[in-house]
């Protein structure tokens, strides 16, 4: 439904996006994950037609209805809905009036426009606030209206650029429910975020970007398979650990110490945990707390780039 091939964009001598390819199918949510400055926003801007790529192509649709964005921008844009990171709504226009405006920009009018506005407001749970102005809304309600504005023309492809920034957990869950509903309706959703837990909850596949490049693109299960250890242990310890010696003696992977916090990957939790505690005690490191968990996308990113996702 949405396909990008070999996108490249540079500003001056600096390549912001280099040879980026991705695809999002109908009824699929693909996460675009990366730290700040990875090139996500520029990628989204190229996918929406806001910024011209130096090289590469973007296609919308499949089969005979497939359109190249740079060759037929108006028709392609009609099939894309964009949810910018910013609250892109008019605070002094009523909720329905906002949607009527954005629907009109896509050529909707009359009864069809009113029908689509009602449907979009209903989907995001704002049908009873249709006449109210967003300036009286909570932050979460504004975010939902921001999403509805991208839905009103019923696009095939929806691109969300960090749509939950500054949203409370309850509203975030409501937004996730909306996205899952849209996936159920066969829409292709591209979701950029730097919140791993969002990507883990929502996305069928994840594209990980760093320094303008795609460093991985796979399902969550596929990404986790790339890790040397799926289980993790986190301990609160005393003193500076000799990490190479620890790895050699216990077989833990990717140890990291940050102050009193020690994080390691383990292949088998039941066997590794006693070995680790024994080694620490033998080397005079008191242990005050221990917890186990499964590897997450943070670990995947760390494994792929050697850097923390939130750096």
């Amino acid at each position, binding site marked *: 439904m949405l396909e990008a091939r070999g996108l490249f964009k540079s500003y001056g001598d600096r390549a912001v996006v280099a040879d980026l390819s991705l695809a999002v199918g109908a009824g699929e949510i693909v996460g675009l994950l990366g730290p700040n400055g990875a090139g996500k926003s520029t990628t989204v*801007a190229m996918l929406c037609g*806001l910024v011209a790529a130096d090289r590469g192509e973007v296609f919308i649709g499949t089969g005979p209805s497939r359109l190249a964005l740079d060759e037929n921008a108006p028709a392609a844009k009609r099939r894309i809905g964009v949810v910018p990171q910013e609250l892109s709504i008019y605070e002094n226009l009523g909720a329905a009036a906002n949607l009527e405006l954005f629907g009109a920009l896509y050529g909707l009018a009359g009864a069809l426009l009113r029908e689509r506005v009602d449907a979009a407001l209903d989907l995001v749970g704002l049908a009873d606030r249709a006449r109210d102005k967003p300036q009286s809304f909570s932050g979460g309600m504004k975010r939902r209206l921001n999403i509805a504005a991208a839905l009103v023309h019923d696009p095939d492809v929806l691109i969300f650029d960090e749509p939950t920034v500054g949203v409370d957990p309850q509203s975030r869950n409501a937004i996730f429910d909306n996205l899952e509903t849209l996936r159920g309706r066969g829409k292709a959703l591209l979701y950029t975020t730097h919140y791993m837990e969002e990507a883990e909850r929502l996305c069928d596949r994840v594209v990980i970007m760093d320094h303008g490049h795609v460093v991985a693109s796979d399902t969550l299960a596929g990404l986790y398979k790339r890790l040397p250890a799926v289980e993790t242990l986190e301990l609160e310890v005393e003193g500076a650990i000799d990490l190479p010696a620890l790895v050699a003696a216990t077989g833990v992977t990717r140890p990291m110490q940050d102050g009193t916090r020690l994080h390691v990957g383990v292949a088998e939790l039941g066997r590794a945990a006693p070995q680790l505690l024994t080694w620490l005690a033998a080397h005079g490191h008191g242990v005050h707390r221990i917890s186990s968990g499964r590897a997450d996308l943070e670990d995947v990113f760390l494994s792929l780039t050697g850097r923390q996702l939130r750096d």
Partner: protein
Amino acid sequence: MQFSAFRALVRKDLVLYFSNRRALVMSILAPIVIAAFFGAIFGSGMDKPTRIPIAFADRDASALSKAVAAAVKGDAAFDVKEGDEAAGVALAREGKVRAAVVLPPGFGEQARQALVGGGAKPVVAVHYDPSQATALTLVRGLLSQHVMKALGDSLGGGANGAGTGADGERSEGGAGGMARPSAFSLPFTTEAVESTARTDRPYNGYAHSFAGMGVQFILFMGIEVGVGVLLARRLGLWKRLRAAPLSRTLLLGSHIASGAITALVLLAIIYAAAIGIFHVRIDGSVAGFVGIAIAFALLTSSFGLLIAAIGKTPEATRGLAIFATLVMVMLGGAWVPSFVFPPWLQTASLVVPTRWAVDGLDAMTWRGLGFHAAIAPIAMLLAFSALFAAIAIWRFDWEEPRS
């Protein structure tokens, strides 16, 4: 403790203010420019006094009237345009001269009779621009002086015959053995006639005030149009608009149209108040007035778009745009009529679009001029609109600032 906190707070304010270079430049530049403007108008630094433009029509063509005409023409205080009565009155009505002096037929003989025998005094009509009425007193005074001198010369005979007064030399009193003319009452009277659209309608000073203030505050609305675009960009609205299947022309064109409509509505309301409450009348061409209003509305809108194109942040842009607007309305004669400007500034201000708007609205209201007088203002306003729009489209930054 308290003092260090106080000092830190004061220091913070000073650092913040002086680090804002735009605000600093505005605070310094604005008073300098405005002070320089008013100093140039009302100050005493001019090398020579401004010559007053007048028209002079001699319908008598007697020796005396010719002598008066020659004296007036030679007077350093006047810049005389000679012609017939109709042309002179038209110039006064268009504001191109401050007064048109008309010596009636029989002026020479009647004045001579009135001076020596108490006959009926001839009536000299002085058609004056009522928006520049301060010149009327001066015109009357100097005219009296020249008439009395010419009469004195003609009555005194000998070396001081009628022809000798034509050299423009101004003298106190008469010449030769003639009694001093000032000992007599003036041998003529003047009739001051306002050069307005209709003789039955006196000059209404509100007409110019509404033109000036209307132009100024509608331009302020234009600033809001531009700042609105910058705000839309900051809020991401511009991104959503650009993501829609719309051309750049349509996007910018919609801003121009909405801004122009708003300006037109505001101007209509302002003039409705002027007409309803202050009895301002459109005595000239209504079509011309509407044409100027539409052209000015387009100018306002394109000015707003220019602001959006060259501005960076809404806050800084608003300050600079207000300053630019104040300079434009100042030079356009919205605050003080342009005729009080020094001659060089009157000429220079023709490159300021507000001058054409204010003059055009004046021409269509109290001056009562026809559509022909609206053509130049409309053309100039449209030309400025096109220029502003072209620069705006050229300079407009379509892509969002990169994060």
